[in-house]
């Protein structure tokens, strides 16, 4: 019995060593990415899975969308990551954008709240303190309680960028996880919060924005506006290195969709 076990262990070890060798021999090199901090979760998960499957070293430098775009332009990384669409000037400078995923943010209220629909302008006014009572937008006479995320959170960053309320939100509570936001909104009839669409539960009500529901299809076709694209930025005139091209194909293939969805965003491909 002992012999069989030790032989099995030896075989497994030998196989592991062989695969290790073959990885090192066939695919050398690395792929470097640089950019959006909001994409940390999704690109981190993709990178880890890619590294496990191929043995190619993956690096990610969380600097912000602007720096990432600049880095790929100057050739300091293989693929730039941006959590906004490219500007026309950037496209003219020879950059190509490939949308990896969409980050949809649901606006959630308590199920008892009669308000079902809001415009983006209303949401912005609520969060910067211009509208403070639900009765002003057709709800009950109750103060609006603003629930948000902590400074530095990707969801907060995205929400404030889309509604243009950066540094202006008058939060009543800053919580450190999506789950806490949902629980708190579910508890308080006057509360409003935001959370990534994938994590919304039935204990809260996601309002429609300008009449459009926050579903995966509406996010993909762009009709639900509280969303932003996660973009892979590459140079149009220069080809990617072999390993970088491998990574690019890997994460834009349909096989990567499960990983992208698990990171809480809607896959684009």
């Amino acid at each position, binding site marked *: 019995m002992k012999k069989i076990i030790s032989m099995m262990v030896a075989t497994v070890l030998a196989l592991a060593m062989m695969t290790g060798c073959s990885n090192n021999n066939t695919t050398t090199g690395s792929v470097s990415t640089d950019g959006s*901090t909001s994409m940390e979760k999704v690109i981190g998960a993709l990178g880890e899975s890619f590294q496990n499957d191929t043995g190619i070293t993956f690096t990610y430098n969380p600097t912000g969308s602007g720096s990432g775009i600049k880095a790929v332009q100057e050739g300091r990384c293989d693929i730039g990551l941006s959590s906004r669409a490219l500007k026309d000037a950037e496209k003219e400078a020879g950059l190509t954008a490939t949308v990896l995923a969409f980050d949809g943010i649901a606006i959630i209220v308590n199920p008892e709240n009669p308000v079902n629909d809001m415009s983006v302008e209303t949401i912005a006014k609520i969060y910067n303190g211009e509208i403070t009572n639900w009765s002003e937008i057709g709800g009950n006479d109750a103060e609006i309680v603003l629930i948000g995320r902590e*400074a*530095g959170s990707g969801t907060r960053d995205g929400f404030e960028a889309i509604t243009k309320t950066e540094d202006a939100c008058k939060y009543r509570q800053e*919580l450190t996880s999506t789950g*806490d936001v949902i629980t708190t909104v579910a508890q308080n009839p006057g509360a409003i919060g935001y959370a990534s669409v994938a994590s919304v539960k039935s204990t809260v009500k996601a309002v429609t924005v300008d009449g459009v529901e926050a579903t995966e299809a509406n996010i993909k076709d762009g009709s639900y506006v509280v969303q932003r694209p996660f973009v892979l930025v590459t140079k149009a005139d220069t080809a990617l290195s072999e390993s970088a091209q491998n990574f690019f194909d890997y994460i834009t293939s349909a096989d990567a969709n499960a990983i992208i969805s698990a990171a809480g965003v809607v896959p684009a491909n």
Partner: protein
Amino acid sequence: MKKNQFIEKLIHGIFLLLGLITVGCVLLITVYLVISGIPAIKEIGFVDFLFGKEWASTASEPKYGILPFILTSIYGTAGAIIIGVPVGFMTAVYLSKMASPKVKSVMQAAVSLLAGIPSVVYGLVGMLVLVPGIRKVFNVPDGASLLAAIIVLAIMILPSIIKMSITALDAVPKEYEDASLALGATPIETYFKVSVPAAKSGIAAAVVLGVGRAIGEAMAVMMVAGNVPNMPDSLFQSVRFLTTAVSSEMSYSSGLQRQALFSIALVLFLFIMLINVTLNFFLKREKE
């Protein structure tokens, strides 16, 4: 014989090494905190950092003033002591002097159980019961507030206060009390005029221990206090403590923001050192 001596020395060495691990950890943490906490204070400016009233670490023009956190931590701890100490102290007097042995053993088991509940459970119960409760009782828009944090902290420090006070009260020589009773004092007079004064440094140590527990608590407080960096002007305001300031922003922080978080941790560390020194002072006095 020689072999025995060798084993003795070997074991002595191993025990010394194990002891040094603890000392090493303390030194490592202290040195690390000081090294990583100083640069941000230098860059922001000592006065602007400690007495700045605004904290906006990710704004386009970042502000790093931690006065709101310091005041919140002080008010929160003071509030917890004001509620927790009378309750804990009376409980200790009752358990040590008046309760029958049966009641005493049951209640002491309950107190120990309270001490063993993880802080995240206190936070969860606070979030699901206390916060909505405060909202309804006081008719405010939201219950996550300084008051909620104070109540949670007051309950969390009860076990340390009760246990430490009981130990101090039990140690009062029975002769003191017998003498007082023999002179015609009632039992209640005896407890409050003889036993309690005799145990006062132990009870003071209990209070200081409670302060230490309250000021260092992060998890439970984070779940009920709302975490907005407001100045603590009212009991119903959403506030951020020193501990939660560090833990809530650490995960996504970078650059000066991250360094400033280490500086907050350093300030908190100094507070706790101060409390420890006070505690040692009282404990020493009790021994003498």
